[in-house]
């Protein structure tokens, strides 16, 4: 970009060609009053305050006028003042001036303008004041909307359209009644707002204000602990409490953007339910033991506080008594790589057991299994370049806007800049509205869609032959398997018209590089690994294509790479591979058990059968997540000694015998591995309350009490370098594998008795931390099940009625909501997993051993007593 020189207020300025006068002035510390300008947004030119005078006497808005070589600009002439002063005075007269009590004070643009222009209050008094006050919209649990302070700069509207891509708010009304409103002028909570708060942070005045607003004293960089994106965040701290969270503008993943959970969902760290001391179960008569409700207060009453020594000695005593096959460990998706590395090392080295798994088995395991099977982990894309370079974006899943909002903002942005979008979702979403192609397969048949796209693209000779020949194997076998996925067959299997499929294939194959996103929505079926393998097959048609599986939890990938898998050592080395075993034995200087361990479901089955004596659960709420609830309960009841290590009390705690309090992510150092295989360091930003230890240190202490060598670490760094050493020595294949696929349906088929397909949508309450955040409970809305209007008519269901949903395995009571976004024959639940888990068939995907927890056949009946929700 060329440089040009201009003169602003007698000051010579060299600036970039193409920048506006306002940008050039602000960059050179020349302040020009402005309200509607924001550096992240296109200029609106609507506040009319940034007027400047050119040497030809013209008065222009500096935010919209580009600089030209030799331009002479005056920012503060008498003429400008004569035009601008009345405007500012009118804004003030029309503004709810209560600066003293306004949370924005000190950061308010209007205050700044008033001070800059030395506004005379006597002049303002000449003006007439507004006659009515508009009530504050306090429906959102995280922020207020105060129309009386709104200056209608439109920054929030443009943020929602240009950056967030939701368009939840816009101008409404005319003249003085103009205001920012949601669709139908409903409270913001009832709109499609995703509460990301991007507008709130950009509001120049006090119209959009975070409810719990306190100014931070210090700010520290770290990584968001919620979904797998690993957004950079700045934690604002005051009095050892989190008071504010901002997006890290320099972070390559989110570039300052945040979602509701990142911005408002971190206060669980300071929750009253935090554990601050080791707990041991009180000895009580057995009869009282199971009478508990799940209230966490009551759970705490079951336990008594003990010293670390007492707790760890007890654990060591119990562990010494059991055989290696009687031990199992559940690692945490929220712990750092170092914590997880130590956890698996403990299981393998101290307990000589490979029975280590995690709740990942319930969601993202098929993705990882398929990625390893095809050897395509290097094809993981990142958000820094791969998304902006992509010519075609494929989005698989229907709730990405809620589950991974920052990604959805970025995808929408890329689409608005011209990338093609193919959406694969059984229901209407905000992506389907902007896609070039929307494929709408029946839930659970996605594999056939991708194979059909492969078939169509290869038939049209749109694959990259050289790359496939040189870098991939198994192509011919794969190609043969495509015979079963001709357009007509796929249409019958999936309901996707063949013309649409062919069109999608052509768009995909001719617009490379493409990037494919998929959410765990398609990995919770008993044929889930096939779904992912078929996506990878499609991906491999072109060498430039990239994939981004949208992991549910922040350290999903890190946990697997750290070795918390029953059949893989760290760095994803298969246990079956004897070379890898030898390598690990040498590194750890011990003999290892070479039998692959049990996966989560198998652990629970074995426990139920009394074969697991000690279960060590780190940072996981199994009751919340695992289907079916009864299996978990029976298994946990049967285990002689359950060790829980967590930061918060949860529903699983009631089954523990000893509970160890660990530090949360803000209280320790380490690394997380996020989307795009990006390893991110986190530092300790909050001081630890006395009595808490990082997970790795607790485990090491137990190991030492067992007299095992190799756990003498002094810092996270030492663990990290050990992990790095393994990744450097690991044995790698360089050829990618195509996977031939034989289509397999999900386990549940509708019939006369169970004519509908039941699926679930994203719900904030499926996250154990959300239970400690009232705001997310409010956002997740009331419990209900969405039903298509025609189905509602056929099954005699009214809107807002209490209904019973019955599957072959169980039944639940809930309420109905009729929605035409849901296709016929499908019910979509807005319910927490804990409630619906009992409905599902207890089958697992034979390849990834992931249980089927997203689909089953049901019937729906109205509850006889018709009770409407008010």
């Amino acid at each position: 970009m060329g440089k040009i020189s201009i003169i602003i207020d007698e000051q010579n300025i060299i600036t970039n060609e193409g920048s506006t006068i306002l940008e050039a002035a602000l960059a050179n510390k020349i302040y020009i009053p402005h309200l509607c300008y924001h550096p992240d947004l296109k200029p609106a030119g609507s506040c009319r305050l940034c007027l400047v005078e050119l040497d030809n006497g013209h008065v222009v808005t500096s935010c919209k006028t580009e600089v030209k070589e030799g331009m002479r600009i005056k920012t503060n002439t008498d003429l400008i003042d004569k035009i601008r002063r009345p405007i500012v005075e009118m804004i003030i007269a029309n503004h709810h001036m209560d600066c003293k009590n306004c949370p924005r004070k000190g950061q308010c643009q209007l205050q700044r303008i008033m001070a800059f222009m030395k506004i005379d209050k006597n002049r303002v008094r000449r003006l007439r004041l507004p006659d009515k006050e508009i009530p504050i919209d306090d429906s959102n649990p995280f922020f207020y909307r105060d129309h009386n302070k709104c200056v209608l700069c439109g920054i929030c509207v443009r943020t929602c359209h240009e950056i967030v891509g939701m368009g939840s708010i816009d101008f409404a009304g005319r003249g003085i009644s103009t205001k920012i409103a949601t669709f139908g002028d409903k409270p913001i909570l009832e709109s499609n707002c995703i509460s990301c708060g991007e507008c709130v942070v950009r509001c120049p005045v006090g119209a959009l204000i975070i409810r719990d607003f306190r100014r931070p004293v210090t700010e520290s960089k770290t990584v968001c602990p919620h979904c797998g994106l690993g957004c950079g965040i700045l934690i604002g701290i005051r009095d050892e409490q989190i008071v504010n969270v901002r997006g890290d503008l320099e972070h390559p993943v989110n570039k300052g953007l945040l979602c509701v959970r990142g911005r408002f969902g971190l206060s669980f760290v300071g929750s009253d339910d935090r554990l601050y001391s080791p707990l041991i179960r009180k000895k009580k008569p057995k009869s009282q033991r199971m009478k508990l409700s799940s209230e966490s207060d009551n759970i705490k009453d079951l336990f008594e506080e003990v010293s670390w020594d007492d707790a760890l000695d007890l654990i060591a005593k119990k562990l010494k008594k059991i055989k290696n096959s009687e031990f199992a460990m559940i690692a945490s998706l929220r712990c750092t790589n170092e914590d997880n590395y130590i956890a698996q090392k403990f299981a393998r080295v101290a307990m000589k057991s490979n029975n280590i798994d995690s709740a990942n088995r319930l969601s993202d395991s098929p993705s990882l299994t398929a990625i390893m099977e095809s050897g395509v982990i290097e094809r993981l894309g990142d958000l820094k370049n791969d998304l902006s370079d992509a010519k075609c974006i494929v989005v698989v899943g229907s709730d990405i806007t809620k589950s991974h909002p920052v990604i959805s903002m970025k995808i929408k942005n890329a689409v608005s800049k011209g990338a093609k979008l193919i959406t694969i979702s059984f229901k209407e979403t905000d992506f389907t509205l902007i896609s070039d192609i929307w494929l709408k397969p029946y839930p659970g048949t996605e594999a056939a869609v991708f194979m059909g796209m492969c078939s169509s693209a290869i038939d049209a000779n749109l694959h990259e032959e050289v790359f496939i020949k040189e870098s991939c194997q198994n192509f011919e076998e794969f190609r043969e398997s495509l015979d079963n996925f001709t357009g007509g067959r796929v249409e019958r299997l999936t309901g996707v018209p063949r013309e649409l499929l062919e069109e999608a294939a052509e768009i995909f194959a001719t617009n490379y590089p493409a990037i494919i996103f998929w959410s765990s929505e398609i990995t919770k079926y008993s044929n889930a690994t096939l779904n992912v393998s078929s996506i990878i097959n499609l991906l491999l048609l072109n060498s430039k294509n990239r994939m981004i599986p949208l992991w549910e939890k922040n350290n999903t990938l890190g946990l697997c790479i750290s070795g918390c898998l029953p059949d893989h050592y760290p760095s994803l080395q298969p246990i079956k591979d004897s070379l890898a075993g030898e390598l690990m034995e040498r590194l750890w200087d011990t003999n290892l058990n070479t039998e692959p361990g049990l996966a989560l479901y198998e652990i629970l089955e074995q426990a139920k059968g009394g074969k697991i004596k000690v279960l060590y659960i780190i940072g996981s709420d199994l009751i919340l997540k695992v289907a079916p609830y009864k299996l978990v309960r029976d298994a946990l009841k049967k285990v002689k000694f359950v060790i829980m290590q967590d930061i918060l009390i949860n529903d699983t705690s009631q089954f523990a015998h000893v509970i160890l309090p660990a530090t949360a992510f803000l209280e320790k150092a380490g690394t997380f591995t996020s989307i795009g295989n990006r390893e991110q360091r986190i530092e300790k930003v909050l001081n630890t309350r006395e009595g808490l230890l990082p997970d790795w240190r607790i485990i090491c202490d137990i190991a030492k009490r067992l007299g095992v060598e190799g756990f003498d670490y002094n810092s996270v760094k030492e663990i990290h370098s050990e992990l790095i050493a393994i990744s450097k020595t690991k044995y790698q294949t360089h050829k990618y594998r195509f996977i031939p696929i034989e289509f397999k349906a999900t386990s549940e088929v509708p019939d006369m008795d169970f004519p509908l397909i039941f699926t679930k949508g994203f719900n904030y309450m499926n996250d154990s931390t959300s239970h400690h955040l009232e705001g997310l409970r409010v956002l997740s809305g009331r419990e209900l099940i969405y039903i298509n209007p025609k189905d509602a008519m056929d099954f005699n269901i009214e809107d807002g009625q209490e209904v019973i949903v019955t599957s072959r395995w169980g039944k639940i009571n809930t309420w109905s909501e009729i929605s035409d976004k849901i296709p016929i024959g499908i019910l979509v639940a807005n319910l927490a997993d804990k409630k619906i888990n009992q409905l599902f068939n207890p089958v697992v995907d034979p390849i990834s051993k992931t249980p089927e927890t997203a689909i089953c056949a049901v019937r729906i009946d109205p509850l006889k007593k018709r009770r409407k929700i008010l």
Partner: protein
Amino acid sequence: MNDKVTILVCQGTGCVSGGSERIYELLKSEIEEMYSEQEIYLKKTGCHGFCQQGPLIVIEPQGLFYTKVQEEDLKSIIESMIGFKEPVHKLLYRDPQTGKAIPFYRDIPFYMKQERAILRYCGNIDPEEILDYIEVGGYEALKKVIKDMTPTDVISEVKKSGLRGLGGAGFPTGRKWEACRNALGDIKYVICNADEGDPGAFQDRSVMEGNPHSVLEGMIIAGYAVGAQRGLIYVRAEYPLAVKRLKVAIEQARYEGFLGDNILDSSFSFDIDIFQGAGAFVCGESTALVRSIEGKRGMPKPMPRARTTEEGLRNKPTLLNNVKTFANVPLIIKNGADWFSKKGTETSKGTAVFSLTGKVVNCGLIEVPMGTTLRKIIFDIGGGIPDGKEFKAVQTGGPSGGCLPADMLDLPVDFDSLKQAGSIMGSGGLVVMDEDTCMVDVARYFLDFTQRESCGQCIPCRLGTKQMFNILDDITKGKGKPEDIELLLELSESIKSASICGLGKTAPNPVLTTIKYFRDEYEAHINDKRCPAGACRINGVRP
């Protein structure tokens, strides 16, 4: 026109509201039942312009002019026609001064002193019958264009004529067409701005209702000239009759081959659709109008921005002209640029159409050459002020225009002289005020309109018009403060300079001109708590 005896029943909105549809139906059945052997033809026409005297009936070929016709008069009208008897005297127009009956419309001063071009056939032809239009030379211009002229020829002819946009701003039409023709792009649009939103203005509506084909023909020629394939008429949904007649006209033009693919067997294809606006005043502004068609909120785009001729509808080059501008085009092509440019002043050519309303004897729609003085319009055509009252002021250009006092009556009305006097041509509203009109109240009335219709986007317009309205409201209620006049002037300057679009830029005009010419009335309200015109309730009491 043929020489058959024809009854023309005005079907303009004014006459329709007076019951002319029923009158037409009754006449029709009466003639069919009782006088079928007589050669009497019956015809619906558009607005005759003299709306105050409606419902109107004209008997051709004589040109007998019947006013305020009621149902019971119909029989006598028909009987008077058989054997050319005496006209029905009680229905004839009477000169308000002398009381003398004037039987033929060409002799009535209201018509006599006009020079009707766009409105020429508005009251003569059936707007729902394309053959009527063709009979008076309609679509000849289009034939000429397609047969003998290149697009550049058309543009230079329009340029030569000196036609300026009649929507209010007066931008040279030929230059606009040329810019659109030269804009890059294969897809181009022609939009007819029929979003006539000024209170009291109904010229565009009358043209669309009275002679819709003239607008279509102008648009088709424009499409040919600029290289567009599609035309759109953005018409207010509050004009149902205009919408209906335009729809009929479009159907008929398609049927006759003037619209659609390969017009008149040429390679030129063009079609027109109707888009009904939702009644926001600001949507008459070009960029707001375009956004409104795109389904967005109608808000003007701030400068600097690309011209609509380069980036208009869906970012394609778009030609946007007013109804009357398009209606002028076939006349210019048919009669030649010189014929057109002979009329009018040095800088404003052709004729201007005004809706003459307020305290004037003859209310209605008039057409005069540009440069006609206000005095001629108000006193010669309009017949002066009724009830012997004194003329006080005339407001031109609708809510954005200014009020001009008696000493400006000899001002020639054209784009530039009005602007100089602090008012605008606007879309052509003329509201006459007499001594009983309070000028502060007038300013208050117009500001009430603009503050309501501000799109709310830019702060000076949204807050400024409301602030000015509140101040004016206070003044008319006797709550004005001595510093208010100065404050109004300060605000006006700021709003004029800072607003994004024409709405805000012109909104202070009524206030500025009334303060300029009638400052004493403001002072009387504020200082003496007195309304000189006796129109305002000061402190809740009517004087």
